[in-house]
Each structure stands twice: as C-alpha cells, then as structure tokens.
C-alpha cells in the first residue's frame, strides 16, 4: 500500500505550464482584488450611509453572496448569464464572480472600520471647518481602511486561494493548468503537491505585496509598527 514511488521527472517538460498557470492566477486574483476592493469600498459607504433603500439593497447583496457557495456564484455568472445574451469568456466570468464575492465580504470588513470611528472625531473635524466630503475622506474612510487593513489583506489572500475554484469553468489559472498536466502525466499526487507548494508561495507573495502597499498607504503603520 505504501509502495508509491514519487516521480517528478515530468517537471522537466511541464514547468513552463506551471509557471504560466501561476502567472495567470496572479493576474486573475490581482485584478479581482483591485476591482473587488473598489466594489467593497463603495458598498461599505452605501451600507453605512443614510439612504435606507440603497443600504438595504447592498445589505441584501451581501447576505445573498455570503450565504451561497462561491462555485454556484461562478456557475451562475458563466452558465447563467449567456441565457440573457451575455456571453463571457471563462476568465471574464471568473473575475466577475470573484469581484462580486470579495466585494460582499470586503464591504462588511470595511463597514466595521467605518462604524468604529468615534463620533467625536467627526465633530472635531467639522469644527475645524472640513466639509462633508473632506470629513468623510480624511476622518472616516482613510482611518477606517487603515484599521481593518490586516483583515482585508487576509480576505484578499483567501480570494487568491479561492480563485482555484474557477478551474471548474476552465478559466486559465494554476489549478486548471495542473488539471491539464495531471491528465497528461497521470502523476496526480506529484502535480497537486507542486500546485500546493506554488499556492503557498503565491500566498506569501500576496501577503508581502499587500503588506508593502499598507506600509506605503498608512504612515502610522510604517512609523509605529502597529
């Protein structure tokens, strides 16, 4: 039973495919994170805003997304939307589904940050003469995102890992490449061990990049190491 002998020789010919897959995952996850962050930010602003109708609408969106499987969301975008005449490439569908998904989770994280800003902060800013937009930007949004940035980073790394699910609609990414290699070499164990190692490396890479972005964006983090 334990007589399995590992054979990684297929790597000699397939490593470019692994690298291509890793790069595609970086692009897929990177663009989903960038767009997803903006969606999350806008949703958090609306959700914590005064407009009850808009806030309720975003709330419904968040709850629906958080209470249904990502795979089903991906299938709806990829297989469902064409019925409405919207034919999407697998990659576009993957990005859309991942953005919708991370937008919902991210907005809840940012909303928590927004709601953690003390009322006194807003009054102090108003008393200094800042207008509503300036107060929102300088005193609410920037500190809110700064405060929840670690949680947001984790969410984004999770999104990168979740992007492997888009292999189910044959989006071009690491897991899909691995599936292909595995079907040609029949070395499933080795292929997925390698894929796991690459995902691990990608996680580290994403964390480092997100950390660096935080260092640049938030002076206090840089200065105080908080």
């Amino acid at each position, binding site marked *: 039973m334990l007589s399995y002998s590992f054979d990684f020789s297929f790597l000699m010919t397939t490593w470019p495919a692994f690298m291509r897959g890793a790069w595609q995952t970086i692009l897929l996850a990177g663009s989903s994170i960038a767009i997803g962050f903006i969606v999350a930010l806008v949703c958090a602003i609306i959700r914590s805003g005064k407009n009850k109708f808009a806030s309720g609408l975003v709330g419904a969106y968040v709850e629906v997304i958080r209470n249904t499987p990502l795979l089903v969301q991906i299938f709806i975008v990829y297989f469902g939307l064409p019925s409405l005449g919207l034919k999407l490439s697998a990659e576009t569908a993957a990005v859309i589904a991942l953005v919708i998904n991370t937008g919902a989770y991210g907005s809840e994280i940012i909303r928590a940050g927004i709601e953690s800003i003390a009322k006194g*902060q807003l*009054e102090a800013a108003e*008393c*200094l003469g*800042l*207008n509503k937009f300036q107060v929102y930007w*300088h005193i609410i949004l920037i500190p809110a995102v*700064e405060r929840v940035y670690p949680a947001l980073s984790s969410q984004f790394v999770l999104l990168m890992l979740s992007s492997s699910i888009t292999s189910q609609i044959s989006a071009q990414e690491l897991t899909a490449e691995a599936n292909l290699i595995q079907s040609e070499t029949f070395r499933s164990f080795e292929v997925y061990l390698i894929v796991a190692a690459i995902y691990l490396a990608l996680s580290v890479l994403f964390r480092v990049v997100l950390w660096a972005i935080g260092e640049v964006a938030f*002076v206090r983090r840089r200065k105080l190491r908080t």
Partner: protein
Amino acid sequence: MSVNEAAGTRPRNEAVPGAEPIIVVDNVSKNFGPLQVLHGVSLEIQRGTMVAIVGRSGSGKSTLLRCINALEEINGGSIKVCGHPVSMSDRASVKRLRSEVGMVFQSYNLFPHLTVLRNITLALTAVQKKSRADADAIAHKVLGLVGLGDKAEAFPEQLSGGQAQRVAIARSLALSPKVLLFDEVTSALDPELTGEVLKVMEDLARDGMTMVLVTHEMAFARRVADIVVFMHQGKVWEAGPPAEIFADPKTPELRQFLSSGL
C-alpha cells in the same frame, strides 16, 4: 442678563465700552426630545474676555457651548457670533462660523492616524487652502506656543493626555479663530497634567484671545476668568466677575454649589 462688566482686582482684559459683543446668546432654549436642557439662556460675551461657565452636571453648560458652535440645533431664541446669526441649517453660516470659532473637547479628538503636525495642518491645507510649507510653518509656530515644538512627528497615541490636549488647542489655534470654546478640557486629565493645559489657556487669555470655557476648575476660573457664569437647571442663574461670584453669591443654589465642590 448682562454679564459684560469685567472687574476685579487683578489685571483683566477690559471689555471695550459700547463695543458689539462677539457672542450674543438671546433667550435660547434647547430640548432633547421631551427633556428641556436650556430654558431661555441669554448671555453676552465681549471680545478679548475669558468667560468660565460653571455648574453641576446636567445644568446645560456643555449643551450651551455646543449650541454656540452649531453642533446642536437650538429650539428657540437666537445666537449671534461675530455679528452673524448661527443656524445649523444654513451651510454658509456654519462655514463662516467654523472659520471664526475653534473648539477643544474633553476627549481631545485628535486624529489617531495622523502625526501631530498633520493633525494641525489638515484644516490649514484642506480648508484654508494654504501650501504645505505655509501650513507646516504655522503648525510649528502654534506647537511652540503650547510648548510641544518637539512633538511634531509624534502620533497622538504617543502623547500623554496633557500633551494631547495641548495639541488639540494648538490645532484650533492654527486656524486663527476669533473665539475659542473649551468643553471641560481638563476633566479627563490627571491633576498633574491639568496644570500644563491650564497654563496654555492662561497664556492665551493674557494675549487677548476670547475664550469660553465650561469647566470644573473653580480655582482656575476664579483666578483667570473675567466673567464667571453659573448655570443651574438650564438657565444662567448668576453671572459676574469672579470676585463677586465667589465672594458674594446672591442665590442659595450658587452658594450651595460653591460650598459643595470646593
């Protein structure tokens, strides 16, 4: 009630006779739901004077201060600052008020994500549209005034309470307001830190800044204020120079207040 005659034995900022008061509160009432907090408060504050508002918790003193600065909508009467009526619904009037009045809070309300310097320059650049260099120069000047010239690059969490409150004062001061409002600014401080904040306020008073403070520091009010206003049950109960207020209280309520807390 007119409270504009400055007097006393110590040198005080004399009100200019016949000059228009810088703040006129006329018969102001304010309620929070069914709870009436201010009952027809009238008060005139002269340019260059320090007015200390004292009274028990719940007497309406902080609410009055917040009404003057358009942080609370009043339900009756009128308030004028620098000759302009204060109205929360009139954005232009609020904007002008913000340029004329600075306010310092009990809880400092420094912006935690900004350095001391950026706390001060934010409004200078965002509101007054000054250049970074001009704003920095002003910030360093006001930090010098409150004795914190070396803290420009610190973050609020690295300051003691007394230092934080002095930064908050400097932040208001940087905008060159005509009036500074202080809402129990030493109430959150240890006694040894209270002194450094009061010292800054005393310096400002000596330089002729118009100041209105809600305070529990009776000794400070007695020594430095030009006028002491005693509020009770949402009304100005008694007001006058500290010498009169402290030495010769006219009402039993003030007498009781003075004997209870000191």
